[in-house]
């Protein structure tokens, strides 16, 4: 372990001396500042900040990832080519430890760059705030200083509902099960999706919530909702009702709101049952057909953690991502010549950025009613591709961080964590294996 740390320190020092550390810090910080001040929004400070932080963070982080891949490739490849690794391997240290040490050193550089990136972005924000009035600045501060936790309604998976519907159909009509074809399936699916979002004329709709924790006294709990209607300019009136089993008196709030806009209603903390579980019902007054989007339809926000804690969460998640990125670069650098290695890993990274697209394609395919062999092969290939690139998928946190929403770290670690962990382990094992088995004089595997 001591030797691994020596190698890590050595890697860091060498990168510092040959300017790689300064280059990385300068490029990412420079890009962040440039994009922060170059983007423009609607001149409302809070919105401006959200947008600017989002853009500059997302872009400079992508750049940082690419830089980390390149410098990892470069350090290990240049040391193999210049045969400095020969001297290291003539010392009593296993090649596995050399690999791990280098990886640690590179992760350290990435961590440093990540810190600088965050500091630069928030410094830019505070500089930017100065050109606005004190009230606006206060609103922005209130939004950012405490991150809010976003509770989504509990929903039933769409596929389940479709199957349910088909069961009913088969039971109640004389349609045989094998007569349910793609056409019927698709129309039922459409119907289900629509029902899922639609509030009919003069009607209402309920959402079930189970929020993260029951709020403390005096804590802010906000209901945020947005709906779409045909006429954008006519406000819609109605009532929100919060009820829970065993709750004597339901909480109600009347509202009048425009379609397409975010609306907030504060719910007193004492109205939320201790279990944190309740139903929220929307009832319109003479309302037309209204649609609540799946993603931003109804949300409950509660105060969660301070900005610092939120930043630390973001930092940790991104550091995991950067360390896997460094491992990919390192392994590619061991396996291939520098040019091939950097090409390979950058392509892998770019693919990972678009893995959402491929996931969408696979999703479309799997949502179909029946599969033939070609479909299955296609899905298999796409899934493998998704797996191959998914490990490099950055954690989806920048949007939350830039709008002051608490990062759901448990959820993130459950959904994104295992994939990247397995990916990192596989890539590291591959790299260590290659470095150990490889003859150090050869250029290629």
């Amino acid at each position: 372990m001591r030797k691994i740390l020596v190698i890590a320190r050595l890697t860091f020092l060498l990168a510092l001396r040959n300017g790689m550390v300064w280059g990385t810090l300068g490029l990412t910080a420079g890009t962040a500042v440039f994009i922060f001040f170059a983007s423009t929004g609607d001149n409302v400070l809070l919105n401006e900040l959200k947008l600017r932080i989002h853009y500059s963070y997302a872009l400079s982080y992508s750049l940082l990832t690419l830089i980390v891949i390149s410098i990892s490739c470069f350090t290990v490849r240049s040391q193999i080519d210049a045969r400095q690794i020969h001297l290291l391997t003539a010392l009593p240290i296993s090649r596995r430890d050399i690999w791990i040490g280098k990886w640690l050193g590179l992760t350290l550089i990435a961590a440093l760059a990540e810190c600088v990136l965050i500091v630069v972005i928030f410094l830019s924000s505070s500089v930017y705030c100065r050109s606005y009035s004190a009230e606006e600045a206060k609103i922005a501060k209130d939004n950012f200083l405490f991150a809010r936790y976003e509770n989504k309604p509990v929903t039933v998976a769409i596929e389940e509902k479709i199957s349910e519907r088909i069961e009913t159909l088969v039971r109640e009509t004389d349609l045989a099960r094998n007569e349910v074809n793609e056409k019927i399936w698709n129309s039922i699916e459409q119907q289900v999706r629509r029902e899922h979002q639609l509030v009919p004329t003069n009607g209402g709709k309920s959402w079930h919530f189970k929020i993260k924790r029951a709020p403390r006294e005096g804590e802010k709990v906000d209901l945020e909702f947005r709906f779409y209607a045909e006429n954008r300019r006519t406000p819609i009136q109605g009532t929100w009702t919060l009820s829970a089993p065993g709750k004597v008196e339901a909480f109600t709030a009347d509202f009048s709101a425009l379609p397409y806009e975010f609306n907030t209603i504060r719910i007193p903390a004492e109205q939320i049952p201790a279990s944190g579980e309740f139903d929220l019902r929307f009832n319109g007054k003479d309302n037309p057909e209204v649609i609540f989007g799946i993603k931003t339809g109804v949300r409950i926000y509660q105060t969660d953690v301070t900005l610092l804690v939120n930043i630390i969460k973001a930092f940790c998640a991104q550091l995991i991502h950067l360390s896997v990125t460094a491992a990919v670069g390192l392994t590619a650098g061991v396996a291939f010549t520098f040019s091939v290695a950097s090409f390979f890993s950058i392509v892998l990274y770019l693919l990972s950025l678009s893995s959402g697209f491929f996931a969408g394609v696979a999703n479309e395919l799997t949502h179909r009613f029946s599969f033939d062999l070609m479909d299955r092969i296609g899905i298999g290939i796409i899934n493998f591709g998704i797996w191959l690139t998914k490990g490099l998928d950055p954690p989806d946190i920048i949007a939350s961080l830039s709008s002051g929403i608490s990062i759901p770290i448990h959820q993130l670690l459950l959904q994104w964590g295992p994939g990247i962990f397995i990916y990192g382990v596989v890539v590291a094992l591959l790299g260590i294996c290659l470095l150990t088995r490889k003859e150090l004089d050869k250029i290629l595997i």
Partner: protein
Amino acid sequence: MGTDTEKNPVIGGIGLEKTFKDFWGRKKVAALKNVDITVKDGSVFGLLGPNGAGKSTLIKLILGHLYPTRGRLSVLGKSPRDVSIKQRIGYLPERSYLYANLTAAETLSYFGAILDLSKDQIASRSAQLLEMVGLETVRNRRIGEFSHGMTRRMGLAQALLNDPELLILDEPTAGLDPVGCREVKDLIVTLGKRGKTILLTSHLLADVEDVCDEILLLYGGTVQSCGSVTDLLQDHEKTCLEFPKVSEQALASAMNILTEEIPRDSVSVSSPSESLEAHFLKVVAKSNAENRETAGARMGKGVAEYLQDNDYETRYHTDPAAAAETAAVTNRIDPNSKLSELTRDAKAKHENLTGDQTETPDHEALQYLVEPGPEPSAITTHEEGIRKNVLDKLADDGEN
């Protein structure tokens, strides 16, 4: 202990072969072919051969950087790839593989940390080593700013940091100034006396001759000769006499006496040593003449014609003696080159000593011969008594 070391040599390799293949697995270069090597504990072992003979390849096999295509190799009783033996090995590569961006002191401190030395040990050893290799004044300068010779010295300091049992030096004197060479040779001798095992390669044959107990001569990846230096260099087909300066008549009569009068058994007989240089050139020239396959450099064909100045041409063509002499050594070596000078010297020395000369010996050469030679030990016979007899006889005849 003696049998122990014979059973377990520090380096033992049998039937080593190394073939470099290209990306598709096609054979590219056969760098080593069926090489056996045994380095005994405590010996100073020299690995010789022209450029590309496979010396560095053999060293890389020993260090576990390359893996043999065929054959078995054990180093310090273990596989060369075993990490634990590296603690006992010091390695000076043929070129500097040190980090150009670290200072001398930093290099030693990082390498010392990997060698598990304590902070105090690192500090005291670094100071001593840097002083030994004469770099103590530049200890805080980056290695990238060193001259070639300085990096060699630095590499040597690095190789000695762990006080290794087995020291592997790939051309340790290459690029060093004469003082540096001398110091390195002294160091090798000192370490050898301390019982360390040293494996070194060198082109500087005189160096090898000075310090090595045993040598292995490679050409084109095959072993050409191998054994202790004294055994190898003793030429058993020739005879050598050694005596102080005498008059010409005395010499003539001594010759007479020797060839005619003195019974064969009373003449002191010994096998003269050829210089390692001559031996080396002989082996290389022979292999070259036999057109043996080598993946490395062949003997040069002399300076490219367009580079030869007019002066050289006239001299070469008008001085038949010079031409003949050069041709006698090898018709491929440029007589102006350093190598040619060396070979000429070696050849002259060798022929003078062995009486193999076809031309009449001139006085100068004779003087050189009869004066106590610069390297008397190289031609001294073991049987002092017999030698004394002959000398006495000569002295008597000279007075008469």
